[in-house]
């Protein structure tokens, strides 16, 4: 049976605004990376840039957007949520935080 946090205890899933800001900064870094890549005019690099852009848009940005939403849910909750939901939201946040903040190029080398 799933355990739930008591209403009287401090919320185990508490998230600080700084964490959300950190995630937004990482997201912003990747968006800027996309703009940077879009502005590369050299024809020999364009196919690679498009590939990188596609990977950022499809794989990195959704993870960060979901991490931000997860953090905002935990910040906004007034009622205790089931432990399993809290754990899932934290997992999403951690996945977002674990992404390199402004190193889109390095990540795209994978």
């Amino acid at each position, binding site marked *: 049976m799933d355990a739930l946090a008591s209403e009287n205890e401090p919320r185990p899933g508490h998230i600080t605004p700084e964490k959300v800001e950190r995630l937004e900064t990482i997201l912003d870094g990747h968006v800027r990376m996309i703009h940077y890549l879009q502005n590369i005019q050299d024809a020999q690099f364009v196919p690679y840039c498009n590939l990188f852009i596609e990977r950022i848009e499809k794989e990195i940005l959704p993870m960060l957007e979901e991490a931000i939403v997860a953090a905002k849910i935990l910040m906004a*909750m007034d009622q205790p949520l089931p432990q399993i939901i809290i754990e899932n939201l934290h997992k999403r946040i951690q996945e977002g935080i674990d992404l390199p903040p402004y190193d889109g190029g390095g990540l795209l080398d994978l």
Partner: protein
Amino acid sequence: MTSPPTMEVACLTFEALNEACELLNETLGRVEHQFIHLNRLVERLETDLMIVDQAIEKHPEAVLSPTLELLRGVIQQQTGVLLEHKARLKQLMVELKVRPEGALVDALMLYFSRLFAATKDTAWIEQQEEPENYTERLVEGLLPSQSTRFLSGEGQLMLGKFTGYTSSWLGMKARLEGHQYWVSELFSTLPSGHALAQPLLLMLQATERRSRFVKDQILYQRALVELERIGCSLSGIRGAERVFSLEKLRLEALMISFPESIMEGCE
């Protein structure tokens, strides 16, 4: 020459014996009545626990029926002994009228010696200022006076609360809390060696497990409402739809609807 003092003694003994029989008869009648109340409380508890069990049958929960059977068995066994006491007491009272000097009276007196002493002790304890400080004798087929008092007072009131049925987890939570209350209160009136003590304790644990499940269901319902509230406030944010739909699905998978089929059967 007759011996008046011996006659007097015999007369007094006979009177005291009749008094003791009356007191015991009254006590047995009262206890029998309370066993009927206890049986009704157990029936209500069983109905409610069965409803919860129908919902959680997918989960590996401890099996209810052995616990319930044990409690029922002990009540039945104690009631059986009580009825035996009643039948023999009736026999003794008749013999005392018909053949007070007969051998059967002696044999029955021997049988009742402990019961007479127990009822006399209890009557004395009840007259004391703090009767809870005294320990009553443990006698098969009898209930301690505090248990009898609880069942005839609060126990009956509780029984009234369990009439009718509920169709929601919230209602079931209140009912299970009521059951937990009467089981634990009745348990607290019993000395640890009483035959009913252990089955009641097991029943309390079984009720607590189911109560936890019901409370979880209520909290899942509240959590869903909470998720929907937060979802509305975050609508329009990129990724919100994906996160909310998945978490709601997860939550809905944990939620179990109140078993309606049993309710229909009960009504």
